[in-house]
């Protein structure tokens, strides 16, 4: 299960957080843990270079995309490799929505579309769509082209 997807700005403020199967009382802990992880490790990291960590039996893959940092947390079948796939889908779709590497402002300008994009990619903790062209069409309620 993909336990969480989180976007934060360069100061560590949350832009998007979506949890699946994480009790409400644990979310705050996860939020601060991830933001601290980013603050400790993401400085100077190239765009889309993936970093990885594990905490007990949970895996975390995270990266920088323009002015925002992206974190994906998973367990069981969503180990570091599956999460690398998930975060790759997310970052390419977000770049696609923004038209370039997002600044914080651009990210917020496209907020609604980004929410729809995430909805098309992950559904209640499972990866549902992986192709960015298809995702772009799904967000506009259009059938995939290859079909």
């Amino acid at each position, binding site marked *: 299960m993909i336990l969480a997807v989180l976007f934060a700005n360069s100061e560590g403020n949350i832009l998007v957080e979506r949890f699946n199967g994480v009790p409400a009382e644990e979310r705050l802990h996860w939020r601060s843990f991830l933001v601290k992880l980013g603050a400790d490790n993401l400085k100077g990291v190239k765009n889309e270079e993936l970093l990885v960590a594990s905490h007990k039996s949970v895996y975390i893959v995270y990266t920088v995309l323009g002015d925002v940092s992206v974190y994906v947390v998973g367990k069981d079948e969503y180990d*570091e*490799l599956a999460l690398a796939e998930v975060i790759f889908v997310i970052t390419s779709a977000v770049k696609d929505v923004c038209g370039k590497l997002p600044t914080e402002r651009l990210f917020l300008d496209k907020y*609604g579309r980004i929410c729809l994009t995430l909805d098309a990619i992950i559904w209640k903790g499972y990866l549902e769509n992986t192709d960015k062209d298809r995702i772009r069409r799904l967000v506009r309620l259009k059938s995939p082209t290859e079909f």
Partner: protein
Amino acid sequence: MAQPLVKKDDDRDDEVDYSPFLGIEKGAVLQEARVFNDPQLDPRRCSQVITKLLYLLNQGETFTKVEATEVFFAVTKLFQSRDMGLRRMVYVIIKELSPSADEVIIVTSSLMKDMTSKTDMYRANAIRVLCRITDGTLLTQIERYLKQAIVDKNPVVASAALVSGIHLLQTNPEIVKRWSNEVQEAVQSRAALVQFHALALLHQIRQNDRLAVNKLVSSLTRGSVRSPLAQCLLIRYTSQVIRESTNDTQTGDRPFYDFLEGCLRHKAEMVIFEAARAITELNGVTSRELTPAITVLQLFLSSSKPVLRFAAVRTLNKVAMSHPMAVTNCNIDMESLISDQNRSIATLAITTLLKTGNESSVDRLMKQITNFMSDIADEFKIVVVDAIRSLCLKFPLKHRSLMNFLSNILREEGGFEYKKAIVDSIVILIRDIPEAKESGLLHLCEFIEDCEFTYLSTQILHFLGIEGPKTSDPSKYIRYIYNRVHLENATVRAGAVSTLAKFGAMVDGLKPRIFVLLRRCLFDNDDEVRDRATLYLNTLGGDGAVVETDEGVKEFLFGSLDVPLVNLENSLKNYDPSEKAFDINSVPKDVKTQPLAEKKATSKKPTGLGAPPPGPPSTVDAYEKLLSSIPEFASFGKLFKSSAPVELTEAETEYAVNVVKHIFDGHVVFQYNCTNTIPEQLLENVTVIVDASEAEEFAEVASKPLRQLPYDSPGQTFVAFEKPEGVSAVGKFSNMLRFIVKEVDPSTGEAEDDGVEDEYQLEDLELVAADYMLKVGVSNFRNAWESMGVDFERVDEYGLGPRDSLAEAVNAVINLLGMQPCEGTEVVPPNSRSHTCLLSGVYLGNVKVLVRLQFGLDGPKDVAMKLAVRSEDETVSDTIHEIVASG
């Protein structure tokens, strides 16, 4: 992506000012949501408001029930709009608002309409929303559409229905299981993701049907699987099938191994890893099977992508636990990862190296780790400390450098958990490696000179009190202990006073000086410290002269209480001070929660410090106390060994029973730990009827029934057998649980008066030769072997017949004898044709035994073994040979 410079600057100008959500406020957004009720809907405006609502929800903002209901009802009005963009937003916000069951009804008809719409994307999205908010009753109404959707030719619709099925299987399994034909069809889909989702759902539907899973795997491993994700799933399911099947005994081949090996050459890294992991986790994996997997993992160790390096080193770390020799080829690559920027990778590399390194590489490794320790977090440091402890136990001759390393890091900055891990490790090393004792104790003494954690100080003082007096020069610890009396808080001061008194009681020569120090403590400003000092001064005797302290006094002051601490705590809580004085004899000695505690204890890491056990007994000492408190067993003498609990029932049965085998010189006691898992039942007069017809040398002499066994409150019943004195008799015992069962009213918790006698068949229990052997290691096998001498040495050769591998033969003999492998010799290097294994133990009658096993491959599979035994008693040396000959 190159863009004109001017354009970039323009962007920057726009961005400096404000965020579109600056100053956003929930109340205001809820007001704005009234726009959904407008007769003339403005789709753009409505989409903006929904985005704001999503922003609030994604920031962790919550809506009250009333607020959520209001917004939800307003949102349902938006189904009137035909704007596609808005409709997409509506689907998302409904899912986010998660309406309650009574509200769902308002939106069902609109969603059902969309679900049967001709527009594919309406169908896909409506399915996702409906399945998110629906309950069982509605599901039966829409089931027909969902089944159609699974085989829909539009992959998005099919995937929506399949992923919905995965979620619905948790809540409505009966309904989803009816879709298996359609899901089976979807597994054959040409769309990669549909196949992935269908495979996941089909496996979940059939996971308890072993044959069906086997068929699924057989057909898919032959055919083509389109997406790497589906291929990974298939590999996982294949591993499951392999685990549950047996090898082809004729050829020794493992079913589906070729498929896994083929996946190592797949173009997707994800698939390669999954296959490599699956191979490394195979039961009894051979070095031939392991090699290709290790080779691909080794390549990934030098990948430029951190995720791949992490995955590779994580997998190799696991392999190193069971097959350390197989990983040694990767050591050079792994050493370069110690300086990896990603600390998770570096920590995994170090702990793997610590597991795979040999004795000669320890010093070099420690140097590298020292540099690394200063820049990692405490949680990683704890992992490294644990690995170093294991390494030290494996190579006891290296204790000096490893102990120095531990003491150095003990002086550095660190939190409580980290410091506790180091202290625990030092304590374990002191206990297991006699040569490390004195230096270890001094390291601990130095640590408490500057320790900020009261808990650790008191625990170390307690440990010093036990071990310090037994050293060659106990006086050198006194200064460290007495310093605590001056410099610490009251808790530590009281601990220090007790430790001083222990030295006084155990070392007569120190008593006069200890008395001087204790007298100074009489002026402490804390009651407890003064009370302790007074008590010790008045009881240790001799008024400070060099005299021996009475054994009774020692037992009174420092002996453990004869009752479980949990029971004592409960009794003290219930004690009313206004009545008569508290009587420790009134504390019950029965241990109620023992089986559960034992289970936990076996799964936990060994804890270091010798503080009194906080809960019920779990060691031989505690068992000894428990058994000696039962009059029927009091005459059996000293307890030699207690086994780990052996389960006699399957998991999740009505009654859970495990047994602990207690071995005495002339007796054996079976302690049956029983748990009643049925709330509506009370069991009374619980006994185990043991049939010892297949254990001829045993005669039942006593049985102690358990009076009551209420729900979820474990209890014990015992059966004792007599056996020939000093003889390691073996046999098989069949067990039947007999009891009177009474119905319990769940509302009142009261049991009926009348009960019915009933029986419950338990698994058989075997007493084997290994039960008479204590696993006791020696730190230097060669010294121990030489000093034992050749007087009672017995040497013979044995043919062990065809074996899967040399390692399997080594393990079989170790398990048969139940002895402690020494110096890491239980690990057989891959591809070896011969191996020497060193074992040590203490046999019934407290006879030390050392064993040297030399294995060699005789032909392709046949294993030959030379067994040399040295012990303190020639009959025991002969017995070891008899055990091997008959095993």
